[in-house]
């Protein structure tokens, strides 16, 4: 038999005080800058990690310029719609990517990604993990980061504190890709965890690992 319960409220009881959650959600900004004509890209994936590694389940989870809708020959490829300013996003704006930069000619920052974990729905039985990756575009004649001048990626939180600063050109010169780290979102707790792994492979290698 179910436990008996009674409503213990009586007329005249003091009403519960109104209150608001005053905590502002943590946000992250990933910035990539470089000089010269090489094409470098930032990528991020919204994955679920249930203990066996981060896994993305749909193309809607992949924030990458390779996943932007475009026509190649007669075939339309990609999932994400490009906005009028060239930017694109996933999960209702939880992750936003700047317009794709195909060279490092911008004055300061060439590409960026904004991550607003507050816009992501929590998942059951695991945590949300967002691996952050930067890669040299494979069609750039086999170039590696050492061939790119002053390639630097930084990651900041919403209060402007720098959580990571990596010189791709000097620290990861012999690689074409680097996983800077992952943003982990676990039931109200949001943190960036640095990884700093350099690898050689294309973006499909990254997708294969995270799917």
């Amino acid at each position, binding site marked *: 038999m179910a436990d008996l319960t009674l409503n213990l409220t009586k007329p005249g009881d003091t009403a519960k005080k109104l209150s608001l959650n005053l905590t502002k959600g943590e946000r992250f900004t990933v910035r990539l800058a470089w000089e010269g004509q090489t094409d470098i890209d930032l990528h991020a994936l919204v994955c679920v990690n249930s203990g066996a590694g981060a896994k993305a389940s749909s193309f809607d989870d992949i924030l990458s310029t390779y996943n932007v809708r475009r026509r190649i020959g007669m075939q339309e490829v990609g999932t994400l719609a490009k906005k009028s300013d060239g930017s694109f996003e996933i999960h209702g704006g939880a992750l936003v990517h700047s317009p794709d930069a195909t060279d490092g000619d911008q004055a300061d920052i060439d590409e960026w990604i904004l991550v607003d974990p507050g816009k992501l729905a929590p998942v059951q039985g*695991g945590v949300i993990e967002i691996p952050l990756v930067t890669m040299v575009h494979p069609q750039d004649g086999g170039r590696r980061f050492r061939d790119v001048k002053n390639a630097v990626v930084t990651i900041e939180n919403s209060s402007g504190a720098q959580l990571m600063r990596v010189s791709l050109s000097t*620290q990861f010169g012999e690689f074409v890709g680097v996983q800077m780290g992952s943003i982990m979102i676990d039931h*109200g*707790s949001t943190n960036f965890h640095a990884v700093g*792994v350099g*690898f050689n492979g294309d973006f499909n290698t990254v997708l294969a690992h995270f799917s």
Partner: protein
Amino acid sequence: MAIKPTVIGGAPASPGTPAPSTAPTIIGQPTQRPTALPAATPQPTAVAAAAALTAEVSRLRGIERKALRVERSELARRHPGVDTAVLERAVAVLGTVTPEVFDEAACAAFGLAAQRRFGEIVDRHLKLLHDESVRSAPRHLARLHALLTEVGEALQPPGLLSLKRESARERLNDARPEIDQLRGLLEAGIAPLTQAQAQLQQLGRDAAELFAELSALTIACDDLAERFGGERTHALAERGLSIAKTAGLLQEHQLQTAAAARELAQLVARIHDGVLVALPAWTASVLTAADTRQTDTQRYVLRNALAELLRQLDGP
């Protein structure tokens, strides 16, 4: 057997005890006090600890590179008196150094990019000083000064040999085409001069930023030289010395930039206050003076006004 009722939280009230009198609440009672926030020392609210992660961070297969992690406090201890912001920058610089790949070539290239920026800043400064608007304005002001001085000679008290000399008004009318042309050129030059002022201020900010970076690089160099051994230490010690010299040169350059900014601001003020305000006022005074020969008093007033105008064109 008599069973007593169970009483929760205290002794039962004696049946004979009179109930406390409850006075009715009176709205608007004079003794009513306004609601006040709690005056007691507030206790800090405990923040709930973040839930522990239930999953490890996923890593791509590859080679892990860990940059140096140096605490600011450690640098502060070794470099007492250094500004906190510079120390933080040094920590950030060291955070981009990965020992496994920081070879002799990397040591030899350490800080070179920042030193090149010093050269760029000097080049920008020189380009600014050789800008035509910056160079021509003082020349125009000097010519205007000379023309007005000539006109002013007619305002001197007449001597024995000056009975037939031109009046100030006649001299001014003769010189007016050139005066008006110079005034137009100087007025048109204000916008580019103001732009040059803004560029010079930006240059000052960039120089200050670079100085902070060079200072941080010097500290980082020192730290790295102690951390590594052999040829790398030697190379880093040389780099540290070279960067410190650049920082010294930059400091000298900052003083020059500040002086140039002051001179440019004075130049703009001379054009604005002298050419655009005082000159038209003085010209009108001369031209509207009586047609007949001017009295000593009129000449005295115009002479004083001209002296003030020339002082403004001269600058401090």
